[in-house]
């Protein structure tokens, strides 16, 4: 029973982890490493230029290194162990002595361990290529240091076991170049796709998919022409090398690091694949020269593309974070303002509640006294319905103001927005005995804006005016005037009060963050309002009225 439920729990747990796209279980990881290693070795053999015994691109080591970079250090040993069966399976088929096969396993593991340990020392945790610093670290430690150091070890083992006739330094050089290219091609591919969230794929629009298809289709076609056709004219070669560049740049700029890594991988496969089949520009020389030139070309093309993609992604993330912070701050200021308005809002909600209660109790009296005609009772019910709808509308409006949402630009009629704002502020204005006058212009063009954010701006101006007047103006003389109109192609909304106004030195300071003259206030209202208006390509400014009081104006471009 216990064992049964425990195993169910275990299965349930692993199933859940799979469904949520989390890290696969340990056994699955080991299986993945083994299969991946085997496939990578097959690719490596396929990319071996005969009779040169060293592959132009040897991906298994890069795969191991990338896997270690993603895994916690305690998992490294069994992840490396998982590669051994795959290594033996593929290498023993090729007739290499067992000692050499085991030696290569050791040197491959050493490369992965050196690279992973160096990177981990400077960047703890699973590596994500999301900043230039980390990308640089990856290039220095995993792409440069790990192949270099392990190649000394590898060449020493080869000489020690006595496999082949190559010189020690030749061995070092060839293995280094081939593994650098592999790290550069396979490493980012695995690192970026393994940490890529499927949510981003699902969120992508069809146009985005079409763009990706166009980029990879175009890159593939260009690579075919440049690297996989029988060589026509050697003098055209330099031009051919540049042919894939536009598509690589396009991928780096538009598709992020996974896109750039994939494009680099496609270029590498096409180039080496062509050369292995005797096609493309790298054919009219010895195998060794061909391999070296291809490696240099591919390394030179890949490094800047990768760094470009990472730099762009870093910048767009910083922009996203800044945007997110602006939204948070805007929302914070809005909620704080609604807090200040809470008394007025309670007043506003209490009106329909009073109407409902008094109507219902009047009906009870009429019925109890048998004095209510059906006509009167039906009027009462109608009024209850209307009051209830009114209360519901107040709550709905409040809810949209309290909610945190993305900025959404829609065509808006500013007269409607003004009406909504005055509705929300009505309770506050009434309790402060402020007389509201509207001078709404007719046939005002629509503006393109976010309803909630523009409501926030105007509400802030109205509340400021109302507070200023209730603090410094006699009750009978508190007049708030809201005007809308068109001025030089812009829609202009003005909020004018009859309060005490403001001294000239406050003229611009009041738009600064945390500047406030109120006892209870964050001092964020106007600075955030100005930021909102700026996002809408408009202007917000204040001025003292000649006859006393203050005016604030918002202009927004007509949509």
């Amino acid at each position, binding site marked *: 029973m216990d064992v049964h439920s425990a195993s169910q729990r275990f299965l349930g747990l692993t199933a859940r982890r799979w469904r949520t796209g989390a890290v696969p279980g340990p056994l699955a990881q080991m299986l993945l490493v083994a299969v991946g290693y085997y496939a990578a070795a097959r690719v490596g053999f396929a990319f071996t230029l005969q009779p040169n015994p060293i592959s132009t691109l040897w991906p298994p080591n890069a795969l191991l290194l990338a896997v270690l970079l993603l895994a916690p250090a305690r998992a490294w040993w069994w992840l490396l162990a998982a590669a051994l069966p795959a290594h033996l399976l593929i290498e023993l088929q090729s007739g290499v002595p067992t000692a050499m096969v085991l030696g290569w396993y050791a040197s491959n593991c050493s490369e992965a361990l050196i690279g992973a340990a160096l990177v981990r020392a400077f960047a703890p945790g699973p590596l994500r290529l999301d900043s230039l610093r980390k990308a640089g670290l990856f290039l220095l430690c995993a792409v440069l240091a790990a192949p270099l150091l392990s190649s000394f070890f590898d060449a020493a083992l080869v000489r020690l076991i006595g496999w082949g006739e190559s010189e020690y330094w030749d061995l070092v050089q060839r293995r280094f170049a081939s593994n650098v290219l592999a790290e550069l091609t396979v490493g980012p591919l695995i690192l970026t796709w393994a940490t890529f969230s499927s949510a981003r794929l699902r969120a992508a629009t069809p146009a985005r998919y079409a763009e990706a298809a166009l980029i990879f289709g175009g890159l593939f076609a260009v690579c075919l022409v440049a690297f996989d056709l029988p060589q026509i004219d050697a003098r055209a070669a330099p031009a051919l090398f540049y042919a894939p560049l536009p598509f690589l740049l396009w991928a780096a700029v538009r598709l992020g690091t996974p896109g750039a890594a994939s494009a680099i991988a496609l270029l590498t496969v096409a180039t080496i694949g062509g050369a292995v089949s005797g096609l493309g520009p790298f054919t009219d020389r010895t195998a060794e020269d061909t391999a070296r030139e291809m490696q240099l070309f591919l390394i030179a093309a890949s490094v800047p593309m990768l760094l470009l993609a990472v730099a762009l992604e870093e910048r767009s993330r910083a922009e996203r974070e800044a945007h997110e912070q602006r939204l948070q701050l805007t929302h914070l200021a809005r909620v704080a303002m609604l807090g200040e308005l809470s008394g007025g809002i309670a007043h506003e909600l209490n009106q329909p509640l009073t109407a409902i209660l008094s*109507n219902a*109790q009047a009906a009870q009296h009429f019925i109890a006294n048998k004095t209510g005609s059906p006509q009167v009772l039906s009027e*009462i019910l109608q009024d209850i319905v209307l009051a209830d709808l009114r209360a519901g509308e107040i709550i709905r409006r409040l809810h949209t103001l309290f909610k945190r949402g993305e900025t959404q630009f829609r065509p808006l009629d500013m007269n409607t927005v003004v009406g909504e704002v005055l509705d929300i502020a009505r309770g506050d204005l009434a309790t402060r005995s402020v007389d509201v006058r509207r001078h709404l212009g007719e046939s005002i063009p629509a503006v393109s804006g976010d309803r909630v954010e523009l409501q926030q701006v105007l509400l802030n101006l109205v509340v400021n005016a109302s507070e200023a007047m209730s603090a410094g103006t006699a009750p009978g003389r508190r007049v708030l005037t809201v005007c809308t109109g068109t001025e030089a192609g812009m829609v202009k909304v003005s909020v004018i009060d009859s309060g005490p106004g403001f001294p000239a030195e406050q003229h611009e300071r009041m738009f600064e963050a945390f500047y406030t003259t109120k006892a209870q206030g964050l001092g964020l209202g106007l600075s955030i309002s100005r930021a909102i208006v700026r996002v809408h390509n408009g202007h917000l400014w204040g001025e003292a009225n000649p006859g006393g009081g203050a005016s604030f104006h918002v202009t927004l471009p007509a949509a």
Partner: protein
Amino acid sequence: MSSAQVSVIDDDAAVLRSVGRLLQAAGYAVQTFSSSQDFLTHPGGGAPGCIVMDLSMPGMGGLDLQQALAKKADRRPVVFISGQGSIATSVAAMKAGAIDFLTKPFDASRLLGAVSAAIERDLSSRGAQRERAAVEGRLASLTPREREVLDMVAAGKLNKQIAAALGTAEKTVKVHRARMMRKMQVDSLAGLIRTWTSIQPPSASSA
């Protein structure tokens, strides 16, 4: 009770209608006004009754209207209803003589209780008013000499002292005094004093 007249003033049409209906259902004659200014142009006030008014209204608010009515010597009691009652405003309203201060939404029993208390007060103050008017009428019917006698009797002087002060015979004073007592419709010194003090202003500064 049905003769009592209740004026309701609230800028919110739905509240105004519902409160008016509730008072109608309770048997009052109701007049509704959507603003203080509207009310001041047709204040009514002939019949006994009271005023139910919103505290915060655009233009003239409830407290200001209360003051304006006091200036016009309109003594109808006021019941305030408010959507957002702060302690400061309710204290100000009560100090200025409001009967009650109800926070919206309120139960019918509270409003009807406050209104009936207000009307009772209006009726009793109107009764006192009538009484006072009657006494003042009787006072006015006194001759100057009778009035002098009254003042001195009320001040506790004896007939002899009064005669000396007026320079007449004590007998003549007795005649004036008897006529004065009859006109004042009292038959004892105690009754005269009670009637006399009922019309004295609270801060006695009569000359």
